[in-house]
């Protein structure tokens, strides 16, 4: 049995109001938000009613008022259209409605959807009001005739967009792009910083899932969302670099953060802004975590992350470098006055690749994460003639491209599946190939041979693809008798990392998963231990920088609620609702993405200079003009 009385979601009309047997609304119809049942909801893609007492004209007016705040006024029809609707409804409610008002509203709504410049005006601003008028016309008529009063209710509202929903940290992407379009780079940066405290880093090294979901993909190409973020960050740094917002009134409570990676920095920044005293304990001599010791300079120059870490320090966050926590002593931290602890230690320990010879301690057979860390901390690495890198992720690619730059002559990646299954970013793979990295697919190592402490040979076996495994990718199966040997002077194993949790004495008490990661609640970031929170790679396993930032953003709010003894209220989740769909598409002229320059592959060897160029201000503004501003609004009770 369905609890839906009426739904026009996605344009599929289901009317159970007079039906004897109630039909089911099916999946994807938002009847619940964050687990709470909604009585009535109006959103960009329709109207959903579950409670017969819901006042639809009142809900529609609340929607119009929220829509008015989102309408930019850059084109005249959307905003004036909304104003006209509000005026007409207020007139109706005041008993001054006119005959033909509803037909007039319908005409304006259709016209505005056809004429608006952006997707907010086209698909969100007024489209669902049409459903309200069409299917709940009696209520509007009753209002106009003075037979009904508007209910005085407070409605909740939330905003998303396809790009925002795809972003792990839900950045207000159309918002910061709009600010760039209006030549307000510093305002744009400050908006970005609300959910992304490392904008220059993320503007270079993000895996940008937002771009995969950009509505523009269906027309020409995605917006260069990542590069626009970088443009805002670079613009500000070129002007001398603005300070981060001042902190609220100083609070007496202190919080300890273990690890100055993206998660730890985000937690520290937000808690500091709320007025807490924050101390970060960092094992390495530098901040940034994997952004610093996992991503080579040619993708992310150190001065970018140093600048952004310094800004966080300058607002009063204490960062104690070279302070490895060997043993987590909560009692001691409590004695020092820390009310809560956030664990953001990352996943820096390489995993075994499962081949013979792995146990030997040898400078020529190293872990990928260790290799990149040594490199970034300035350790001298002698180039050899040949290196074999095992793995298909971004770490493997980063190791390979770094080796070429160090002067290795022959750099080869072995991956046990095919290109299609390779987890590394396509653009990274392309760059590696362009620079001369060789990739051998469907090959796995069997044994690494050493002589007098030096690697001499690697034995490999060919693979073929079988049925998909639990990850959905086709499983590699060894081909019997396909073994071969190849000479090499170095092997780098880059097949994955796990957190190094040696500092946790009682793992059972804290809670550790079978994957070797810390157990933490995915919403509140609480661990099993009172006052201890955790987030980022040490909880998720090796994930992305932006996911770590998201964990930090939310954990800060959760820690604040914990210290103040309040309930933590997470933001509205649009999970399970297709935010990509819009009922009115309209005509959009194609306009290709603004391109940036890349360093000539011929001069990349021997140098760790940044490969990808950025936008200048004018080019960034041009790219920002391509944004279709696909804000999606929902209002509900």
């Amino acid at each position, binding site marked *: 049995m369905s609890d839906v009385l009426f739904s026009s979601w996605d344009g599929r009309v289901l009317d159970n109001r007079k039906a004897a047997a109630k039909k089911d609304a099916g999946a994807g119809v938002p009847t619940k938000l964050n687990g709470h049942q909604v009585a009535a909801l109006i959103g960009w893609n329709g109207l959903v009613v579950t409670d017969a007492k819901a006042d639809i004209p009142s809900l529609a007016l609340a929607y119009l008022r929220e829509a008015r*705040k*989102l*309408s*930019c*006024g*850059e*084109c*005249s*029809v959307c*905003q*004036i*259209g909304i*104003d*006209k609707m509000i005026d007409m409804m207020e007139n109706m409610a005041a008993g001054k409605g006119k005959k033909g008002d509803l037909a007039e509203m319908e*005409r*304006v709504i259709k*016209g*505005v959807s*056809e*004429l*608006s*410049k952006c997707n907010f005006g086209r698909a969100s601003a007024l489209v669902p009001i049409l459903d309200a008028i069409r299917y709940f016309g009696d209520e509007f008529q009753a209002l106009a005739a003075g037979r009904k009063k508007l209910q005085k209710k407070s409605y909740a509202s939330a*905003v998303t967009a396809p790009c925002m929903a795809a972003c792990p940290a839900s950045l*207000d992407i*159309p*918002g910061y792009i*709009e*600010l760039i379009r*209006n*030549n*307000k780079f510093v*305002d744009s940066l400050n908006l970005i910083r609300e959910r992304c405290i490392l904008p220059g880093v993320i503007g270079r090294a993000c895996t940008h899932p937002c771009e995969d979901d950009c509505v523009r993909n269906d027309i020409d190409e995605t917006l260069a969302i990542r590069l626009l973020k970088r443009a805002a960050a670079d613009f500000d740094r070129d002007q001398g670099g603005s300070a981060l917002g001042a902190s609220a009134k100083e609070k007496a409570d202190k919080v300890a953060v273990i690890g100055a990676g993206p998660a730890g920095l985000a937690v520290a920044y937000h808690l500091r802004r709320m007025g807490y005293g924050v101390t970060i304990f960092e094992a390495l001599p530098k901040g940034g975590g994997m952004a610093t010791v996992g991503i080579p300079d040619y993708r992310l120059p150190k001065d970018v992350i140093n600048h952004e870490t310094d800004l966080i320090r300058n607002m009063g966050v204490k960062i104690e470098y070279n302070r490895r926590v060997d043993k987590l002593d909560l009692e001691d931290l409590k004695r020092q006055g820390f009310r809560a602890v956030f664990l953001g230690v990352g996943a820096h320990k390489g995993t075994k690749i499962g081949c013979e010879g792995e146990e030997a301690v040898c400078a020529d057979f190293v872990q990928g994460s260790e290799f990149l860390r040594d490199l970034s901390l300035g350790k001298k690495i002698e180039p050899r003639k040949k290196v074999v890198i095992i793995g298909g992720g971004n770490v493997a690619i980063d190791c390979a491209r770094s080796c070429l730059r160090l002067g290795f002559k022959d750099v080869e990646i072995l991956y046990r599946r095919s290109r299609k299954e390779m987890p590394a970013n396509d653009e990274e793979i392309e760059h590696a190939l362009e620079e001369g990295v060789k990739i051998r697919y469907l090959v796995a190592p069997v044994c690494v041979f050493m002589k007098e402490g030096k690697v001499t040979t690697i034995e490999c076996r060919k693979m073929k693809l079988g049925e998909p495994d639990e990850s959905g990718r086709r499983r590699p199966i060894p081909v019997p008798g396909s073994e071969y040997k190849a000479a090499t002077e170095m092997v780098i194993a880059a097949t994955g990392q796990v957190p190094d949790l040696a500092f946790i004495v009682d793992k059972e008490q804290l809670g550790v998963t079978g994957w070797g990661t810390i157990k933490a609640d995915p919403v509140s970031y609480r661990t099993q231990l009172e006052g201890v929170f955790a987030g980022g790679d040490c909880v998720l396993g090796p994930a992305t920088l932006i996911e770590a930032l998201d964990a930090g953003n939310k954990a800060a709010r959760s820690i604040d609620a914990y210290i103040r003894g309040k309930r933590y209220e997470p933001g509205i989740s649009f999970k399970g609702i297709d935010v990509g769909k819009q009922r009115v598409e*309209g*005509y959009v*002229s*194609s*306009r290709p993405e603004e391109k940036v320059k890349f360093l000539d592959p011929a001069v990349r060897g021997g140098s760790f200079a940044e490969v990808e160029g950025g936008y200048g201000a004018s080019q960034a*503004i041009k790219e920002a003009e391509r944004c279709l501003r696909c*804000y999606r609004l929902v209002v509900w009770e």
Partner: protein
Amino acid sequence: MITIKIDGRKVRAKEGATVLQAAQELRIEIPTLCSYKDLSPFGACRLCVVEVKANGKWQLATSCDAPVKEGMEVRTNTDRVKEGRKLAAELLYYRYPTTGAVREIAGKLGVDVAEGKADDHDCILCGLCTRTCHEVVGVDALTFMDRGPGRNIDQPKIEYIADACIGCGSCAFVCPTGFVKMEDKGHQRTIWGKDFKMESCGVCGRYFAPVDQLTWISKKTGVPYERLKTCTSCR
């Protein structure tokens, strides 16, 4: 050159041209309040809509920012186009009922314009001034106020950044409604409420440009200020 079809006529258009430009070449009149030949299109007023055939369907599209494409089919004079333009004009008139320029174009497009006050000069947010300031002048003294989640601005407007303005008056020149007011009183020009000292021509003595503007041009081009002190008539 590429070939497109406008109102059934096959025409050749320059690559990179907009549908509006191609139509204007054919002397087809298309109404607009926000486009100007030297500025990039902005699509603010929505008055220039035409029908474009896309995926086999006729769709409304603003002609000012639609680039021509080989084989494109356009209709500029159908009922749907007229209805669209009329609604866009109607909404402008709804918001700015006493602004002369709006009343005039609304009347032309079939909107019932009531008798009454017609001498106001409201800003209709067409963006001509912001684009001129950014694209032609290059000083960015004018910009749109932004909107979005949590930024609850009641009425968007053009922001004037006095420090950046050089008083050149280009914005007043392109403004379609007379909202941007500029007053020259010999040695002084007033625009956006800011006073600018004027420079007099070294030859004829006439006040011809703000000192700030000449300083800016000198800085930008490297031409010494003294050499810029001659007005265009005397040069």
